[in-house]
Every structure is written in C-alpha cells, then in structure tokens.
C-alpha cells in the first residue's frame, strides 16, 4: 500500500499467519504447573533385612549393585562375586522379578551415557542368566547419567555412580 508517497509493502500472507500463530500462543502456560518429582522406578524396601527372603535382605546382605571402571562394562571379580550371590538368591526366591538399572557418571554426553548404562545393565543380565536365572524374570533399563546416587563432582562420587543396580519387584516372571 502507499501512504503519503512512502513505500509500504503490505504483507497479506504475514497478516494471516501472524494472526493464527498469535492465537496459538494463548495456550495456558500453567496447564502442567505441577510440583511433582520424578521417581527412578527403584522400588522401596519391603520386608525386614532379618528376613532372608525379603527385598531388604537382598539389597543389604546380598548386595544389589556392582560398580564399573570409567567407560567400561566389564564385570570385576568383586562384581562377579556379588552377582553370584544375587543369582543364588534369585534362584531361591522365585517370586521376584527384577529390573537391572544401568547408570553412568556425569562425565560424558547424555546420549553416550544412556548407551553405556545399557551396556552395564546388559552385562549384569547376561551374567545372571549364565548363572541360571531365567531371562524372562529380568529386564534392563539405562538411566545414563540421569540418576546419580552421589552428587559430588569427583571420582569418589563418580565411582559409586558407575553402577548397575538389581531392583526387585514382587510378582512372577511372565
């Protein structure tokens, strides 16, 4: 359009798109305004640690986790000892299934750590299956670096975070 001799370009296309898009911006920003936290899916302890068939006993007396070296998914002899105990316990307590959570420390990208956590969880699963635990009682999940257990930023914490945790769930394997 021309106004007082000034050069003006009337953008009819922009008019329509602007109007439409601006309406889309009217969505309520508070529709997901919650304060809830996210859980890891790690079940709470059940039963007493005195009861050798309880999840609490598994976690505390058997040991529910193994640790890994930087970037590695190889099971140390110490880790293998822990997993031997886990396998034996799982064979005795057949009402439980388990999810094996693989984790990484924060040194690494999000995507790489997800893949690395999966390798670690898988190493534990394969070991347990080789020791006689039915594969259909075990699932693996990787949390990458999303759920550190220790939150300092040095090797003392990183060593605890490079882990695979066998989390028990009640219920028969399917």
């Amino acid at each position, binding site marked *: 359009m021309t106004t007082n001799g000034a050069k003006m370009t009337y953008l009819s296309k922009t008019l329509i798109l602007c109007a439409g898009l601006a309406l889309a911006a009217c969505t309520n920003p508070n529709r997901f305004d919650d304060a809830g936290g*996210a859980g890891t899916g790690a079940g709470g302890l059940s039963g007493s640690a005195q009861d050798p068939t309880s999840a609490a006993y598994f976690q505390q007396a058997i040991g529910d986790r193994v640790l890994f070296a930087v970037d590695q998914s190889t099971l140390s002899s110490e880790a293998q000892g822990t997993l031997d105990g886990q396998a034996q316990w799982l064979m005795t307590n057949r009402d439980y299934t388990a999810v094996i959570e693989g984790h990484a420390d924060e040194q690494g*990208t999000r995507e790489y750590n*997800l893949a690395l956590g999966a390798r670690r969880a898988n190493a534990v699963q394969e070991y347990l299956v080789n020791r006689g635990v039915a594969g259909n009682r075990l699932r693996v999940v990787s949390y990458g670096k999303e759920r550190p257990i220790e939150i300092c930023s040095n090797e003392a914490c990183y060593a605890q975070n490079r882990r695979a945790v066998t989390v028990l769930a009640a219920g028969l394997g399917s």
Partner: protein
Amino acid sequence: MMRMIPSLLAALMLWVMPAFAQSSGPLRIEITEGVIEPMPYAVPDFVADSAAATEFGRNIARVIASDLSGTGLFREVPIQAHIGRITSFESPVQFADWRAVNAQALITGAVGLDGAGRLVVRFRIYDVFAGQELGNGLQFVGTQDGWRRMAHKVADQVYSRITGEGGYFDSRVVFVAESGPKDQRAKRLALMDYDGANLSYLTDSSSIVLAPRFSPTGDRVLYTSYETGFPQIYVLDVASVGRRALPTPQGTMSFAPRFAPDGRSLVYSLTQGGNTDIYRLDIASGASTRLTTAPSIETAPSFSPDGSQIVFESDRSGTPQLYVMAAGGGEARRISFGQGRYGTPVWSPRGDLVAFTKQSKGRFHIGVMRLDGSEERLLTASFLDEGPTWAPNGRVIMFTRETQGATGEARLYSVDISGRNLKQVPTGTGASDPSWSPLQN
C-alpha cells in the same frame, strides 16, 4: 564508497567507519569478518495512533533493542541520549539529529489497533549517514498477544538487511526444565521464545524426559520419556500438546531421535541386548530400518540439511568420535581426529559445519568443524558443556552448561560461531537440552 556527508560530521564519520566492514554499502556488518565494535543504532518508541497503543509502541521498541543488542553486533544509542523525537511515522526524518548522536541505523515505527482490535505495526529502517531508507517499510498485523512476535519480526528484518544473513529472533526453543537436586532431579518439557519470554510447559514432571527436538517446521517435537519405566521416543504436537509413543520392539530402549529434513521420518538410537545402533523410522507407517550394525555404541544421529547424509557418534575406534554415513546407512567415514572424545554432532542448517560436544583433559567444550573434520574450533570451555543446537541462520549455537558439585545446576547458554557473545539464556529455572526452532512463518 564514501558518500557525500556534511563536513561538520566528516571527522566523526571517519572515526566510526573503520569499525565496520564496508563491502556492499555504507550500512553493513560482515559477520564472518568478526565485528570488533558493535554498530550503534537508535530505536525510539514506535508512534502510537491511540492511547491504547502507547504501551505497545514502547514495548515493541524495547524488544527490538533487546534482540539487536543481544547479538553483540549492534549497540543501542540510549533513548536518553536522543536529540531527535519521532512524533510522526510519515514525517521526513531529521537525519542530522541522529547523526549527532552517532546512530548509524535508525528504526522508526508506528503501532495502532484496527477495527477488530488487532495490532498493526509498521516500521522503516534508515541508513542515517547515507540519509536514506534501507529497504522498504513493512507492515505486520496480528493479535495483541502476539506483539512480541511482531517486534521480533521487525528485528529480524533489521538484522537481515544489515548483515545480509537470515534472522533468528522470531523463533522458539523447546528444552527440558529442571528442578531439584542432581540425584532426584525433576524434568519436564518446556517451550519458550528464543529470548526466554512466553514460557509454557508441554509435559508434567512425573517421568524423566530428555532431549526434545523440533521438527523442521516447528509443529512437532520428538523427545525421550521414561513414562513406561523405560526410555522410549514420543512425538508431540506443539499446538494441541497431544503426544504418542513411536512403535519400537518390545524389550528395547530408544532415544536420541531427530527428524529428517522432510519431517516424515526420523533417526534414533535403539538398544537391544546391550548394543546401541542407529535406526530410521517412517512416522506414518511406523516401520524401522536399521542403519548401523556394529557391536559398538552408535548414537546421536543428525541429518544433513539436504537429507542425504547422517553425522553420528560412535565408539567403534575405542573412544567416542564423529562419523558421517549416507542416509541409507552403509560405510561411514570418521571426521573427528583431535585429542579427546566427541559427541552429539549436529549438522548446521547452512550445511557447512557440524557443531559438537568435546571432552578433553577433564573439560567439556562446544565446538564446530567442517564436514571433512578440518578447521575445528572450540567455542566454549567449562566443567560440562553439551548438546549444541543451531539458530535458524546457522550463526549462533545454544547449549547446556552444568555447574559441578552437589549444588550443580544446568542452564542454557548461547554463543556465536565466532566464539564471541557467550551469554546465559534466561529460563527462570534449571534448563537443559535446548532445541532451536526454525524461523516462524
């Protein structure tokens, strides 16, 4: 190329001119040549045609100034220093008033409300020392709620006409809003304008969500969620906030999705039996095709803008490095050869560079390199920088920076591909995994 200017101002002009590359006209910033001194400009309040429009006139001018000065390429001559007053959009500009305060560019505008209550914004850009208009005046019409977008559109025009590059202000960023300590951090998808305004949430924080990625038109977002207890890829419609899980085989984990340039398929990582490879999924049919078959980790795939190639991360050599393969898979060539570990490569929208995360000697960097691995440049360094995303014009990169220790927190930062103008992006809360939208229509 010096134009005739009043002798009174000649000395001032000569003092200022060397700060700018003079390639194709008097008012020009060559981004690639590295601007040392930002170009001074003035943007008085837009002239309101009614009392109801006055506040819009002021606010629009402020957003334009925030956009332009935020690039580091422009410097606003503060309103308090103005001698001239723009009281009518149509009256001739008194260039001497703006030369006197050394404003090289002047942006004037008018704002009003039409019969339907819509906002009408007009503007012109002037080359003050040449005493002429730079390009044509334009008019935008939109809802009153969309006033910030109209301001961004004006600023994009100014940026574009002076730098010769595409703009990036009328764009949005989808990211992960974070709260709580590292060991129980709550995450949810959030959407905002590129400058942090108009924050809204796309999911709640009942499940971990990771790495949202905009579609090529900005209408959809791919992301990874632990909604089922296992990482799985979802596609979310931005307008309706409706979402659905993409089909992946039972007992697998999927993550690191990115759209193909046509928006109809995506590449992602799928983990099965502990091994992570790259797959392509056709969204309409749900059919997946496997693109890599190595026993190593293959992840973080990103398409070239023409869709013909994919850059990705693999530790097949023993450490994570960057590789390029054809979009259909097959042989890959390694492109990263520096000291350290490379990850999350993202192809530039201009096609000329790959941005990446690099880990070296206990530090993290955001860097860029050419597709043959040459001209690697590290733009940032900190305890933890990762996850670059490109501005629509391929000139600015946004990324996550996380601070260390028990109180560590993630925030978004942006930096020019020259390495200049590093700054935090306001999000109000902890924030990670940004994905920059294309310019909006």
